[in-house]
């Protein structure tokens, strides 16, 4: 790509050149038609948000509609079911409200009582005692007891459950035996009375309570699961705010949830939720605009349009998510196994500009991994800042000395695994490619390819000549800062970038075992700082959760990524 073309694209992306001029000059400079079309399609300046609007504040209260009108109609794009061991799709957080763990994430973003009322641990946090609510009941009116808790936790570890997260409770004694099929129940769980469950772990785990709030920790009814067989979830008996009164699986799945009259805490305000699978986003929008549904996920283009006005501006409801969308360095190969090179690249990109022009600002730059709205988080700038001179200096400090000596480098962009429109991340990669070329003098390739999973990306990276930068994401399924450990610990299977740093590993081991809360936070902050200092990521962007809700829907709040954690507070207002 010529310098003239780069100037042209930069001007267009900054809004200094209008569409017409851009197209005319692009044609004159011989720019590839596909590149022009891609930039125009993904990045029409008219759709750019001038700046990211503030996260939505809770809507003002209104007068609740009569109970029979407390019905929320929603659509979702993927098949769904209420099946905690094996289902991890779009409605996973709703599942946590329909079922219930010993604990759950509350509206104020803290962990609180679920099936259990209280809990305590011994000094080294290796033995945890949970007191269940004596009124806790399943949706069929039978009591939830310690035996149900013990069976559920054992079932998740049992291969017969086909659980996708069988090791969630691997620290409970007896996990290996259950997993190997030599025991049915976890020996490390003792039910001392129907309302008291004692967990004995193989070692300290300060984050154990957070694990009880995860999906695998949702309490199931043994008879329902065993008697229902492989498809027990067709008629699940639940343990949370709602019960399932109708469910049709398939490509046009529908589900009706009704308020669980046996729920023992403050009941849900909605009497019914009607959920339907509608895969086509255009059809979803038509239904929404025609007032046939009350809410849906807002795609980036619609988000951008709504954030600058229009019919759906008042309906836009969004918040930051505990997720990181990133371009990261594959650290297992040169030149990105060297910190100075990674820093040079990270300092060469103006992430704020990329976010604004290529993503409509919907994913803002992430200064550090654990955000300020999360436990132990903050907004300090740990990620290298955009500084062209510093970038050049970093590259000069590296063993390569200059751009000319660097081996070839490539962006491997998989569009899958995100909530954004197809092609979006490829466009971001092109923007990053141009910035690195302009600011660092390094020419990179961009390869767009569909990868179903990270192992496939690894194989492609190993087969690719030179260095590789991936586009990936991660989130926190665990309400604990230890979620960042998995991303960078050298022996973690979730370390997609194959980053390896013994100093960081030592810090992680220390943090994971630290019992003092303040010190623990301090250590995770240090880990976060080291991730930034080491420039593990080229371009980390904060995930967001974006929705449209009709104005009559009140009481919702974005909590820990999605709205579903506040679904019990949602209600339909008449004014």
């Amino acid at each position, binding site marked *: 790509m010529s310098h003239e073309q780069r100037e042209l694209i930069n001007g267009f992306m900054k809004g200094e050149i209008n569409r017409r001029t851009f197209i005319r000059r692009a044609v004159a400079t011989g720019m590839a038609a596909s590149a022009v079309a891609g930039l125009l399609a993904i990045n029409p300046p008219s759709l750019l948000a001038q700046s990211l609007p503030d996260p939505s504040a809770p809507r003002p209260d209104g007068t609740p509609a009569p109970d029979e009108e407390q019905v929320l109609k929603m659509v979702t794009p*993927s*098949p769904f*079911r209420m*099946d905690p061991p*094996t289902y*991890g*799709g779009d409605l*996973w957080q709703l599942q946590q409200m329909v079922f219930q763990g010993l604990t759950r994430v509350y509206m104020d973003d803290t962990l609180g009582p679920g099936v259990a009322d209280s809990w305590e641990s011994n000094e080294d946090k290796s033995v945890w005692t949970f007191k269940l609510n004596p009124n806790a009941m399943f949706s069929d009116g039978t009591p939830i007891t310690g035996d149900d808790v013990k069976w559920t936790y054992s079932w998740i570890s049992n*291969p017969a459950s*086909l*659980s*996708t*997260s*069988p*090791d969630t409770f691997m620290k409970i004694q007896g996990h290996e035996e259950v997993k190997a099929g030599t025991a049915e129940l976890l020996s490390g769980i003792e039910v001392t009375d129907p309302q008291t469950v004692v967990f004995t772990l193989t070692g300290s785990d300060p984050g154990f309570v957070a694990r009880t709030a995860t999906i695998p920790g949702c309490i199931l009814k043994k008879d329902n699961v065993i008697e229902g067989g*492989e*498809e027990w*979830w067709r008629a699940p008996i639940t343990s949370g705010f709602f019960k399932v009164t109708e469910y049709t*699986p*398939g*490509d*046009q799945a529908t589900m009706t949830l009704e308020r669980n009259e046996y729920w023992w805490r403050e009941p849900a305000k909605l009497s019914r939720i009607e959920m339907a*699978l*509608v*895969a*086509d986003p*255009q*059809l979803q929008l*038509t*239904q929404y*605009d*025609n007032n*046939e549904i009350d809410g849906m996920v807002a795609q980036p283009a619609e988000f951008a349009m709504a954030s600058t006005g229009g019919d759906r501006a008042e309906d836009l409801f969004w918040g930051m998510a505990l997720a990181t969308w990133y371009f990261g360095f594959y650290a297992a190969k040169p030149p990105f196994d060297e910190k100075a090179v990674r820093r040079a690249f990270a300092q060469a990109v103006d992430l704020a500009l990329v976010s604004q022009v290529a993503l409509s600002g919907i994913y803002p730059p992430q200064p550090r991994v654990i955000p300020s709205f999360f436990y132990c988080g903050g907004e300090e700038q740990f990620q290298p800042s955009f500084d062209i001179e510093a970038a050049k200096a970093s590259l000069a400090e590296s063993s390569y000395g200059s751009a000319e000596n660097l081996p070839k480098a490539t962006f491997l962009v998989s569009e899958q695994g995100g909530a954004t429109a197809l092609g979006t991340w490829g466009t971001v990669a092109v923007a990053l490619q141009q910035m690195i070329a302009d600011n660092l003098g390094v020419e990179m390739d961009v390869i767009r390819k*569909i990868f*179903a*999973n*990270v*192992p*496939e990306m690894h194989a492609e990276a190993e087969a690719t000549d030179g260095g590789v930068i991936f586009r990936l994401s*991660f*989130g926190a*399924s665990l309400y604990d800062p230890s979620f960042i450990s998995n991303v960078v610990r050298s022996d*973690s*299977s*979730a*370390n*997609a970038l194959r980053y390896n740093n013994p100093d960081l590993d030592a810090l992680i081991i220390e943090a994971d075992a630290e019992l003092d809360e303040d010190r623990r936070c301090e250590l995770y902050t240090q880990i976060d700082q080291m991730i930034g200092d080491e420039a593990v990521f080229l371009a980390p962007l904060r995930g967001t959760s974006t929705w449209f809700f009709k104005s009559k829907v009140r009481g919702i709040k974005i909590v820990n990524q999605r709205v579903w954690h506040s679904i019990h507070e949602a209600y339909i207002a008449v004014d």
Partner: protein
Amino acid sequence: MLPFILRRILTFIPVLVLLAFLTFILSYYGPGDPLRVMMGENWADEAAYQQLRHSYGLDRPLLVQFIDYCRDMLRGDFGRSYIQRVEVSELLWKAIPVSAQLALMAIIIVAVVGIGLGIISALFRNQWPDIAIGTVGVLLHSIPPFVLAPIVLVALVLKLGIISTPSGWHGFFSYQTVIAASCLAAYPLLAIIRQTRAGVGDVLSQDYVRTARAKGVSEYGVIMRHVLRNAMAPVATSLGLTFGALLGGAIFIESAFNIPGMGTLFFTGLRNTDYPLLTGATMVSGFWIMFSSILVDVIYGILDPRVRTGK
């Protein structure tokens, strides 16, 4: 006629086996790994992955898996969807009648409108009705279904406000089905119009048509009795093959109207790398296309006896 039909069926058996093998191979060596997709955020847990592979029998030799698959398939068992966790056959048996009815409605529209307009075009060859029909046909043929469907939706639902969103399946005679089938019929309409126009045009110039007119047969009688029957053989072939293709699933239309047919099944299977679902849907579609192909041959044989006698 029976030996002819049996002969045709026998030729399709090896084709079906080959299709089964190819689709199965695709699921074995194809891109993506549904188990990793199933594992969601836990994708990297190798032990859990191996456990799932074993649970689903994916760690057995390929040939063993294929033979098992064929044996089960003969019993109507296409396995269990990785993503939806239900029997694929259950999904197929729900989707097939829906797609069949949608395709039937579409083919009726294509046949009635296409043949009708084709006859008008032939009768007014190179005059304004012919040009207008050709232009509209080309226009409809040129608009991709994924563009046409949203336009129709926005126009009828949001702009004119005359219907609610035609989402889902509401029965053969519902307006929702007619709208979706009309969108589905838009693309193949042009081919039927042109074939009818060409066929009718050719027959109109035949001696026996001139003779019929000379004998004082009304124009209506000439068209219906002498022209159409002789011009319809190639059109019937096209209609039959179009019907077969429509049965296989109109991915975009079914997706746009949220119709739970074979197209939606394909779309969901593809999006989720759900190979049992994809393989099952492909086999059923393949079967339908072959079945409709036999049907076409039979109809063709009825219209033109030379076909079935091989002369």
